[in-house]
């Protein structure tokens, strides 16, 4: 019986490259179809004037981007989102870190707390928004406030603090930011707790042997070991907070003047209200680029900190 000899080209370097390309093809195709192509279409649309229905579009070049640069409401919405993000980065992540530290210790019912702290993130944003709206309601019936917060402020004698929380430009955005933190701290908590549990306990013991107190141990052992996790939490917080909008809609409807507008709401308004799909896409591209820049910025910081 003759031995079957495989053709020579099967052993060539070119065929190897082809095989490698073939194996990556499914992933590349999926990435192209679901990421590259939509992004291309959005960018292409952003250079057109189109009402979303008509079969024809008008090419306007970079006009939509130029108009966007002078759109004060758009930049105000960006500032509002940045404000929510700032509150989330500080308040939300500090609470998450503090609770993660508490649950990392040997305390009673720590498993119960872990479950409880993770309830807000799994709730629907609409439900959370409506519940908090009910808590922050300002109306009165029969001389009693029916919003839970005002009711208790009134009951405990803090009448001067009673407020129309969601219709006051001074407090509306802060209320949304606080509720956003309440809803989101569970994610940070879980990730930070997981990070804390990966720290080698021997490091703490060594620090204790060296005479370090709790604060020194936290500052010199916990924080440096947690830097990579903290950076991931920070990036996710920034991306999540900048894109908040369901919560805003369920708490203040279409917004309190422009004091509670956020970028996604403006994009929706351009698309659904004015039917300017091209302009909405220009907003989307602009917003996406800003988020990419923020992520890259944090990535650079992360790399530098790792090197240090």
């Amino acid at each position, binding site marked *: 019986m003759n031995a079957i000899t495989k053709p020579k080209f099967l052993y060539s370097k070119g065929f190897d490259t082809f095989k490698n390309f073939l194996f990556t093809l499914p992933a590349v195709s999926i990435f192209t179809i679901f990421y590259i192509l939509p992004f291309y279409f959005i960018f292409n649309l952003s250079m057109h004037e189109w*009402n*979303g*229905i*008509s*079969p024809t579009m008008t090419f306007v070049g970079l006009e939509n981007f130029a*108009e966007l640069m002078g759109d004060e409401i758009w930049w105000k919405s960006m500032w509002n989102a940045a404000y929510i993000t700032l509150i989330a980065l500080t308040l939300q992540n500090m609470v998450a870190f503090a609770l993660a530290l508490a649950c990392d210790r040997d305390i009673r019912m720590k498993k119960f707390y872990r479950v409880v702290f993770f309830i807000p993130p799994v709730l629907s944003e609409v439900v959370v928004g409506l519940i908090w*709206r009910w808590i922050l*309601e*300002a*109306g*009165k*019936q*029969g*001389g009693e406030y*029916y919003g839970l917060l005002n009711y208790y402020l009134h009951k405990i004698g803090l009448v001067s603090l009673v407020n*129309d929380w*969601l*219709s*006051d*430009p001074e407090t*509306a955005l802060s209320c949304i930011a606080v509720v956003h933190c309440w809803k989101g701290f569970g994610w940070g908590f879980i990730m930070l707790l997981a990070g804390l549990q990966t720290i080698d306990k021997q490091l703490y013991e060594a620090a204790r042997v060296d005479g370090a107190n709790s604060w020194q141990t936290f500052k010199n052992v916990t924080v440096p070991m947690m830097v990579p996790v903290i950076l991931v939490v920070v990036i996710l917080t920034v991306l999540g907070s900048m894109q908040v909008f369901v919560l805003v809609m369920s*708490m*203040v*409807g*279409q*917004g*309190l*003047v*422009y004091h509670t507008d956020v970028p996604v709401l403006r994009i929706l*308004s351009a*698309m*659904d*209200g*004015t*039917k300017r799909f091209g302009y909405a896409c220009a907003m989307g591209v602009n917003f996406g680029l800003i988020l990419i820049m923020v992520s890259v910025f944090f990535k650079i910081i992360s790399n530098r900190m790792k090197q240090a």
Partner: protein
Amino acid sequence: MKTINRIFCLCLCLLVTAGLLSSCAQKEEDPNTVVMWHWLTDRQSVLQELADRYKDETGITVKMELFAPTAYSQRIIASAQAKVLPDIYGILDKKQTFASFIDSGYVAELTEEFEKDNGAWEKSLFEKAINVNRFEEGNVYDVKPGIYGVPVDVTNTQMLYNKKLLAKAGIAKAPETMDEFLVAIEALKRVGISGLVSGWGESWMAGAFASNYAFNIMGEEKIMATYKGDVPYTDPDWIKVFRVFQRLSQAGAFIEGIVTKPNKFAEQDFALERAAFAYNGSWCVNVYHNMNPDLEYGVMLPPAVESDYPMLIWGGAGTSFVVNASSEKKQKAIDFLKWFTEKEQQAYFSKETRNLPANKEALASIPEVLEDFAKMMDRTTHPTIWKYNEDHVVSEKFEKGLQSIIIGEKTPEQVAQEVQEAKERVMKRQAR
């Protein structure tokens, strides 16, 4: 191992080929099934019941597919782009969008059907409701004149008053003028009752309320001239419209938080007797009945400011459906809509859903409060029947301006100036 790998690869290839073939193949459609997309979450069971009755009578199945109201408009637009619109659907948007759908060939013209048998179908329905679906000769959208949709119920937006709370404050009758209304507000405040509640977190409602006063203060001609760009928003009459809100706000007529209140919350407030007056559409009869069946209330026009022009209210077709122009079952879809708007079906639909029927003859069996709403159908007007519509950017500025006035952030003059600036920007863009 090699054999297993070969079998696995073969299966994978077959699966991919089958997938490709099935996606390329045309879906077989049942010629006796008409698909209708709607957003009427509270009326799905009634619609389904009517569809079942229609099947019993004609053998034609009408498949009712319900979608979330919040996402319905986007779904329709996306389906139009993908050319997968159903046989019957509704366009929940401005007349301009409606015109774009017609212009793009997604909506069938129904004029001929309405005119058949001496216009029997057209005559059976409220004219104002038909007009919402009609494009007149020389319309600004350049749409071929005709009727393009079928109204299945009608609606109008008025003010409501709680009889018990008014009596408690010693108010004998519902106020008819703004001065009377402000006196009533004072009386209500003395007994600790809030005045007016409405869902102005949904800004179109505040815009509609302002529009009522615009009609009362300056009449339709001047409003249209403003939308066209001939009269500025800084005109004294427009400032008068903005001042209505300032006056009401300064008198403490609004319930706390009105500017961000969603209409569902506002409806709850009125149903739970937290406010004496509400501004809401006729659909509220069903909502209030479900929330508080014992609520005693009446219907009134918004209190007038001037007497030169009548107070007009927003209204017309509440729900309209159109037929897909490229549907192969176009005639079957039209036949179903004709049947749906007949007296018998309309009476059932109205009775079960507590909404005003589009068929005039079906009015006989509606509740008293709905009758009061129906009496004012002659006073209705709506952006969908106006010659000109305001651009969304300007409307948004206008509605946000109303919020600013209510919360005391800006004066009517400042808001008028800002709205006019927005109008000028839009006109410049449109000219480009």
